[in-house]
């Protein structure tokens, strides 16, 4: 292997500080923490601006269209301001990252109006009776539109699944006590470690030893199934010198299985009558991508009448537990590729810095938001916290998080055009699918049988 250092060449300049304004992870942190800090300032000054901004029709329980129309008529100004705030923040930051502002705004109008409809459906008095949970409805409506209606390409710049979910996760931190992270984190990391290793080895060894797929493909699929889907696959693609078709294969398998699990896991959890926390942990152990997992966990949480606990358990398992493995796997596969596989003529020596470079930075925002709000609220007694602080500060932040998640779920559906997905080889399909089976069964055992009492009491 030759490296730049060995040739006496200077190393390329890394992106460095530019990442602070060119990567959506950092924007999710700036915006999320900005909302938290501004929210606290407004609260301390007795302002209800945040509450006014966080309007949505999801909690209306309307029984006829007249009630719904009355709600929009009396809150038209709030919705107009809300749209302007969302459009300005997402539009400007996306433009700074290099996305065409005009195209983004056109697409965002579409996303926002659809989101209002999704919340309105969820606010119907009979919505729960027919399982019309907004996350699920958003996903299905998006899928149907993307695959049956010739949507203009102009809209696509606003379908930023990851950006929306990352901001949602940072906002989630504001309603997530840091003490819970401290007490539940070790269990989540332990469970995630078991799952990550088991699933990765299953996919890799079945793929390469039984089904004879390329070991680079095996590596890309193994982390895709074990950690966080396509993002993890992409993270190690350069480590192992994966071909473009390998990533295509990961995209297809992850998307198809993630969608299947969004649609199946909530209903299986319902059939098994799992407590919200247990189901959230199971979904966090079994889903691949954060966005898909939040859709499933949020859907089941609404079905079980305890969305907050379902989302908390999912977050602990997936975001805090499994996502943190990305950098480690990237380093491990880079070491394997450069020391155990054939000499890579394009390789550079992997280093421990790989773990930080691949770290999902938005998670930092989640922790900081949690610490800020936990610190701020510790001075209030339980009664004041419940009657004053929560309704004026935490609930509005939670409602804004709900908006970003709906933008995300709609974007998943609207971005998924099945005809564009690549046909994958039989070996890759079987290896990944068997990994999914192992993942789901092991996830169920850990979440229900072994740590069930723990997750149920979350």
């Amino acid at each position, binding site marked *: 292997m*030759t*490296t*730049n250092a060995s040739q006496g*060449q*200077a*190393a*390329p*300049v*890394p*992106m460095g500080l*530019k*990442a602070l304004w*060119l*990567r*959506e*992870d*950092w924007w999710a942190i700036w915006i999320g923490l900005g909302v938290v800090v501004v929210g606290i300032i407004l609260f301390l000054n007795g302002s209800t601006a945040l509450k006014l901004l966080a309007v949505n029709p999801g909690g209306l329980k309307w029984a006829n269209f007249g009630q719904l129309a009355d709600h929009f008529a009396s809150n038209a100004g709030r919705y107009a301001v809300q749209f302007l705030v969302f459009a300005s923040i997402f539009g400007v930051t996306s433009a*700074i*990252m*290099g*996305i065409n502002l005009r195209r983004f705004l056109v697409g965002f109008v579409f996303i926002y109006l659809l989101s209002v409809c999704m919340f309105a459906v969820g606010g119907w008095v009979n919505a729960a009776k027919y399982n019309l949970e907004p996350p699920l409805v958003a996903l299905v409506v998006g899928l149907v539109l993307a695959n049956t209606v010739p949507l203009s390409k102009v809209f696509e710049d606003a379908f*930023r*699944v*990851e*950006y929306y979910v*990352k901001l949602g996760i940072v906002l989630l931190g504001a309603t997530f006590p840091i003490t819970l992270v401290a007490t539940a984190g070790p269990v989540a990391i332990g469970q995630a470690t078991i799952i990550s290793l088991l699933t990765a080895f299953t996919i890799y060894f079945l793929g390469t030893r039984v089904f004879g797929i390329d070991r680079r493909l095996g590596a890309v699929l193994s982390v895709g199934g074990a950690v*966080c*889907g*396509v*993002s*993890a696959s*992409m*993270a190690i*693609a*350069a480590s192992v*010198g*994966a*071909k*473009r078709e390998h*990533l*295509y294969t990961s*995209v*297809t398998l992850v*998307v198809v299985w*993630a969608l299947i699990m969004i649609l199946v896991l909530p209903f299986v959890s319902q059939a098994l009558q799992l407590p919200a926390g247990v189901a959230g942990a199971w979904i966090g152990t079994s889903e691949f*991508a954060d966005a898909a997992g939040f859709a499933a966990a949020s859907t089941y949480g609404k079905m079980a009448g305890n969305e907050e606990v379902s989302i908390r358990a999912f977050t602990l398992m997936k975001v805090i537990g499994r996502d943190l493995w*990305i950098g480690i796997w990237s380093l491990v596969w880079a070491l394997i590729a450069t020391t155990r596989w054939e000499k890579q003529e*394009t*390789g*550079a020596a992997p280093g421990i810095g790989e773990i930080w*470079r*691949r*770290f*999902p930075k938005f998670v930092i925002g989640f922790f900081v938001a949690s610490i800020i709000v936990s610190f701020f609220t510790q001075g209030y007694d339980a009664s004041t916290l419940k009657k004053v602080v929560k309704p004026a500060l935490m609930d509005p932040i939670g409602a804004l998080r709900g908006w970003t998640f709906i933008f995300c779920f709609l974007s*998943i559906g609207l*971005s*998924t*055009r099945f005809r*564009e*997905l690549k046909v994958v080889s039989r070996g890759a399909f079987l290896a990944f699918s068997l990994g999914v089976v192992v993942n789901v069964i092991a996830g169920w055992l850990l979440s229900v049988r072994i740590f069930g009492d723990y997750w149920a009491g979350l």
Partner: protein
Amino acid sequence: MMTRGCCGNCGHFAAGPHSLESQVAGLKILSSAFGSIRDETGLCRMRDFFCMPDHHCPDWQERRTADTRGCAAPGAPGGA
């Protein structure tokens, strides 16, 4: 600084987020080329595989300026 021979300043290297998302259809359904996990991973259009800016190979080709072929420094918005 990037020097001759590094993928980061090679004409075959595509690391701009728009470029990656357009070259790997479906990438942005559940992921993003604008995320930090990707770091500066790019696609070698000659060998059709993924690599990093500090990698290098014998097929290095001088990159033309952004004005002539739409390339930009790795990671820059809209860069090729």
